[in-house]
């Protein structure tokens, strides 16, 4: 089975792997990436979130040496080596899996080993991780899309990379394929590897990422821990036949920041501080307000994301 991935000690936790400084890419009059600045620290799992065409892939293309930046700069591993040397310590898959169709999986991986300058010893290990070991002698072109994507992940793991970059890894896969890929990513993340995951699928990011960078039209909207994306304490969903009493009660309550009434009659009370549902329930009852519906929720990343991209 796979050798354990290099674990991140606390003393390494602040090591910066990738630094973007005002990175910009223009295609003619279109600015695909606009002065993007953020850092990737070792040991975290990052998500780059953005709708389709927001510049995620272009950003990754620039740091991966296939797209030339229009201005700005980026720096791998503190700038101690040039980009293509640094990329030998990176594992990356982009959009679709790209391999030589008439080569077997094994030969394709051997080629990657030659490029990265590592020996063949990990080939069997990584094929095992992605469950392709039985098919390693088969031509790449005979693989299904899900298998191709898994092979791409295997290839990215060959050099026991410092960081794994995944661009839309589940794009175009069937539910089973999506599940397999997510399980693999979770497993790798649990081993302490630094991961940068670009996706427009929010639940995908929510499930594995600790940090998130949100971009829209090439502009950074947010960068930081997922929890702080919208620094709220959650909200209550309330329904009652005594709607007016409920509203005036909420107006005076110190833990409630504000409330919105939705079309369905549902009242959404946003918390200003941590507060338990049972206390609110009791207070309402004491005031003679009978609740027919009470749920305490935190906004999903999706709601936060939509709010963030709408506000701009």
């Amino acid at each position, binding site marked *: 089975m796979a050798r354990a991935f290099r674990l991140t000690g606390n003393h390494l936790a602040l090591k910066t792997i990738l630094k973007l400084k005002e990175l910009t890419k223009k295609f003619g009059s279109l600015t695909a990436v606009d002065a993007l600045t953020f850092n990737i620290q070792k040991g975290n799992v990052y998500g780059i979130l953005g709708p389709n065409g927001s510049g995620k892939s272009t950003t990754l293309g620039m740091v991966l040496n296939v797209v030339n930046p229009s201005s700005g700069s980026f720096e791998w591993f503190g700038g101690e080596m040039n980009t293509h040397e640094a990329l030998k310590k990176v594992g990356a898959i982009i959009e*679709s899996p*790209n391999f030589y169709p*008439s080569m077997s999986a094994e*030969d394709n991986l051997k080629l990657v080993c030659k490029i990265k*300058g590592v020996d063949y010893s990990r080939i069997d290990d990584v094929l095992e991780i992605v469950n392709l070991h039985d098919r390693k002698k088969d031509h790449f072109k005979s693989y299904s899309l899900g298998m191709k994507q898994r092979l791409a992940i295997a290839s990215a793991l060959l050099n026991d990379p410092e960081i794994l970059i995944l661009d839309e890894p589940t794009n175009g896969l069937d539910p089973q394929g999506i599940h397999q890929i997510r399980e693999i990513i979770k497993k790798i993340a649990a081993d302490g590897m630094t991961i940068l995951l670009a996706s427009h699928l929010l639940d995908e990011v929510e499930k594995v990422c600790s940090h998130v960078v949100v971009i829209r039209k090439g502009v950074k909207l947010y960068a930081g821990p997922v929890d702080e994306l919208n620094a709220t304490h959650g909200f209550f969903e309330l329904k009652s036949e005594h709607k007016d009493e409920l509203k005036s009660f909420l107006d005076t309550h110190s833990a409630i920041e504000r409330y919105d009434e939705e079309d369905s009659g549902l009242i959404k009370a946003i918390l200003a501080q941590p507060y338990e549902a049972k206390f609110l329930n009791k207070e309402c009852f004491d005031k003679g307000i009978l609740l027919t519906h009470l749920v305490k929720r935190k906004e999903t990343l999706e709601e936060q994301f939509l709010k963030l991209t709408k506000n701009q």
Partner: protein
Amino acid sequence: MKRLFLIEFHKLRNNRAAKILSLIYFILFSAIALFASIKFNFGSIDFRLADQGIFNFPFIWHFNAYFVAFLKLFLAVVIVSMVSSEYTNRTLKQNLIDGLSKKEFILSKFYGVLGFAIASTLLLFIVSLVLGLIFSDYDEFSIIFSDLEYIFAYFLKLVGFFSMCLFFGILLKRSAFALGFLFLLWIFEGIVQLFIKFQAESLDFILNVLPLQSMSNLIIEPFTRLGIVKSAATQLNSEFTKSYDVEWSTLLIVLAWSFIFIYSSWKLLQKRDL
């Protein structure tokens, strides 16, 4: 350098089309040489090409180098497709992401080109040597190994031609376009040649620097040098004052073209977003 060559070799070894075409090339190569040694019976006359003096040292170096050069088209297809398939399979992108620099990518392709040129040249040398040893009327050591500059010229001709194919492959990204472009260039140079010959003879220096023309100038046709043709010509009182030597200037021009093609491939790739 070894790493880059091994990368390219690994790609070629696992590419069936490249393998088959290369195999056909090297088989044809040997077969053509053998063909010349077969005896033909035209009724009562026995005719054997080998007896016409074409396999005499040192003439054989010149003759074979000229004669088998057209086979390079086979390898041109291999080279163009090994470049363009990197675009269509998007493996070029993946190579770069895996940590190959754009310069290393071009260099690895160039080493592939050198590999093909060296292998062809070696084969030419061995086949010619064997044929010569069998059929040549002269077999003194000093004669056998004279005029070897034709072998070197052949090598450079292949390097130049393959570098051009490499460049077209990088430029146009599709093998069909690249080969079509090669064909267009050939026609274009033909038109320029005709124009200069009949309209502007003072510009004939241009002919020496055109890429395809300069490559073909490396090895001048050997037929009029053949004893039988020569004696026929003398009987017809026409004078032969043609030089059959490999010219230094031509060597330099082809070398310069090879450099230009490889360097432009690199610069082109550097400028491109993939």
